[in-house]
């Protein structure tokens, strides 16, 4: 089943299985205690916290990093070049080999992973950050839409997500009770996660309060946070050495794929996520059992949608961290998914996991990472 005009899933050849396949691992991860209210800390401070922490965990110096790449969004601060100020926190002296994507930092990880596969460097630092509390995220994301035909309508991200939730309800793919169960479990997990903005928060009224945009209630919608995350990648023996020094093991990247879908929500079947399906197939999610997954579901209905698109069976534990409903440090949220899965594999709590990141209206652009111990 595919939407008209969608190229066949074979349009992009699967990743070549060459000798370096699987040779890159996540060896350290750090995140801030994400905040749903502005603490006054500037971006550079958030970045400094996680970069310093990840290097300390890994036991390496800034000068040892082969490549650095970050993800952020100027519109969160409403001014150009937020990544320039954040660079101060990385300690870029002597000058460093460095790049930046205006995307969720999970795509920065993608760029770093490509770079490591050249074979001439053995470590890469990836970080993402954002202070989403400084603006109105749904309004900012309206400016993400086609500027001629869609943005002038003024539809915001929550309203578009509600259309998707409605499509799933109408197709009887989910019920409102299913959405409530996702919210309940996410908040329970978030309360146990010290990095989550919802730690200590009890959602007494979430399931009975007024709809924000039918059928979504406040609890169904991620609250944008200020926060940052950093991941250290390493290859081969370097990865083993860094992990061993921490008393953990490398979380090897066995598949890393990303696909974008058509932009207009009207051009897609919103009850599916074609780009996530393609990325998951290409990354080899189904090649072996998966124990844990973290998915970038900023709305409750997106979790069951993504569970299906990624081919995760009922036995897979999804978003044990509480997921984006627990904490949504915009532009780092996708990278946090990778870090949360890698952390569990590094500690031996899981053998194989899947991390998913998304951006764009109604899950337009999707990235899937398969991590193994």
């Amino acid at each position, binding site marked *: 089943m595919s939407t008209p005009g*969608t*190229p066949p*899933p074979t*349009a*992009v050849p699967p990743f*070549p299985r*060459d000798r370096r396949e699987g040779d890159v691992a996540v060896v350290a991860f750090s995140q801030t205690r994400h905040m749903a209210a502005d603490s006054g800390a*500037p971006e550079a401070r958030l970045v400094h916290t996680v970069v310093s922490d990840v290097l300390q965990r890994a036991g390496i110096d800034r000068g040892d990093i082969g490549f650095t790449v970050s993800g952020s*969004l*100027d*519109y969160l*601060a*409403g*001014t*150009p*070049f*937020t990544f*320039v100020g954040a*660079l*101060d926190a990385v300690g*870029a*002296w*002597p*000058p*460093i*080999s*460095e*790049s*930046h*994507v*205006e*995307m969720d930092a999970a*795509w920065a990880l*993608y*760029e770093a*992973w*490509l*770079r490591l*596969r*050249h*074979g*001439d460097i053995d470590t890469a630092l990836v970080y993402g950050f954002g202070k989403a509390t400084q603006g109105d995220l749904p309004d900012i994301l309206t*400016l*993400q*839409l086609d*500027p001629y035909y869609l943005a002038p309508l003024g539809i915001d991200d929550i309203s578009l997500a509600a259309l998707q939730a409605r499509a799933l309800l109408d197709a009887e793919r989910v019920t409102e009770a299913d959405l409530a169960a996702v919210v309940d479990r996410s908040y329970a997990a978030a309360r146990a996660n010290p990095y989550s903005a919802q730690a200590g928060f009890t959602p007494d009224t979430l399931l009975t309060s007024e709809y924000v945009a039918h059928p979504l209630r406040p609890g169904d919608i991620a609250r944008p946070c200020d926060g940052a995350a950093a991941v250290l990648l390493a290859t081969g023996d370097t990865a083993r050495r860094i992990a061993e020094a921490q008393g953990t093991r490398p979380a090897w990247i066995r598949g890393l*794929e*990303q*696909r*974008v*879908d*058509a*932009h*207009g929500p009207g051009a897609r079947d919103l009850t599916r996520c*074609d*780009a996530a399906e393609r990325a998951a197939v290409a990354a080899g999610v189904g090649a072996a059992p998966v124990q844990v997954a973290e998915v970038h579901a900023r709305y409750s209905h997106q979790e069951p949608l993504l569970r299906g698109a990624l081919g995760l069976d009922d036995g897979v534990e999804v978003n044990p961290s509480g997921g984006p409903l627990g904490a949504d440090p915009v532009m780092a949220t996708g990278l946090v998914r990778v870090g949360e899965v890698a952390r569990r594999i590094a500690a031996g709590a899981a053998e194989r996991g899947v991390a998913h990141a998304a*951006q764009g*209206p109604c899950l*337009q*652009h999707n990235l899937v990472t398969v991590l193994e111990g």
Partner: protein
Amino acid sequence: MSGRPVAVIGVGQTRYRTRRDDVSIAGLVREAALRALEDAGLDFADIDAVVLGKAPDLFEGVVMPDLYLADALGARGKPLLRVHTAGSVGGSTGIVGASHIASGAFERVLVVAWEKQSESNATWALTLAHPMSTSLVVGAGGYFAPFIRAYIERSGAPGRIGPMVAAKDRRNALRNPYAHLRIPDITPEMVEATPMLWEPIRYLEACPSSDGACAVVLGGRTAARAAPGAPAWVLGTAMRSEPIAFAGRDAVDPRAGRDCAADVYAQAGIADPRRDIDVAEVYVPFSWYEPMWLENLGFASPGEGWRLTESGATAIDGDTPWNPSGGVLSANPIGASGLIRFAEAAQQVRGAAGDHQIDGARTALGHAYGAGSQFFAMWIVGSECP
């Protein structure tokens, strides 16, 4: 460079203009992409991944426009990456595209960089207004003018050098059908007669604001063999960044630029850039950046760059031609400007640079820089497979 060999197998540019009201943003990027695909003898269906670059989203007011442009660039169902490294972004986008192939993951990658500056006001959009920091409403020219003054002071360069560069690059632009500024019979005297914008930068010593897009199709060895035209092989790529301000930083001759050049030269086997590089396309948005970058890139000793410019060595008929396309001074769609440098360098070694072709060019440098002279991206391309 490291990893698998990478070649430029197609180049496409739009004509650069103050306003391209005849096309939408999607129409603009598609125009360049289709020309690059045609040059490479390919269709969108042949492309494995798309890499998109542009400067701040505030220029057009579209947040993360890669999402909206996915359809126009044939990216649906494929990987897409959006690069943003300030003014160096066009160069960085080319390098990230090359990395896609060098990694072994892809065989044919479409790289597109663009800006539609008529949608906004660049001086406003480039004026930092971070909370808790002083806002300098100065734009790029106001930011770089003190660095230029410091260079003139340090080197003792005579005031005529800047206007010489401005006139030289605009004369070259008359040979380039894509160039934005086309000023027949331009002379240094004409430049000196224009108003002072940011002392010592006069009106005609500054780059224009342009709408435009540049696209490059990159391929691996198999794709290069199948391409109808001559490939340009990527012999080296490098990026370097340093902090915007600290007491030990030399903003006139940034170490990040020197380190970046040393890295890319080592990869490409360049021992003496003036001797070993046949032609250079270097990011010169304000005239004085030619002598400054001649020194930073090792074409001249510190303090001596202006003498090279004055001698005519960097003219199109000189022994080390710089910016035969007319350079950033003749067209500046900011996010695309770096990729245009990279693409023009490739066209030179492909023998496809038309009326601004340097005879026998076999090795060329593409260069871009950004933000507070702190981000650098460079590649060396050659006519022979490494």
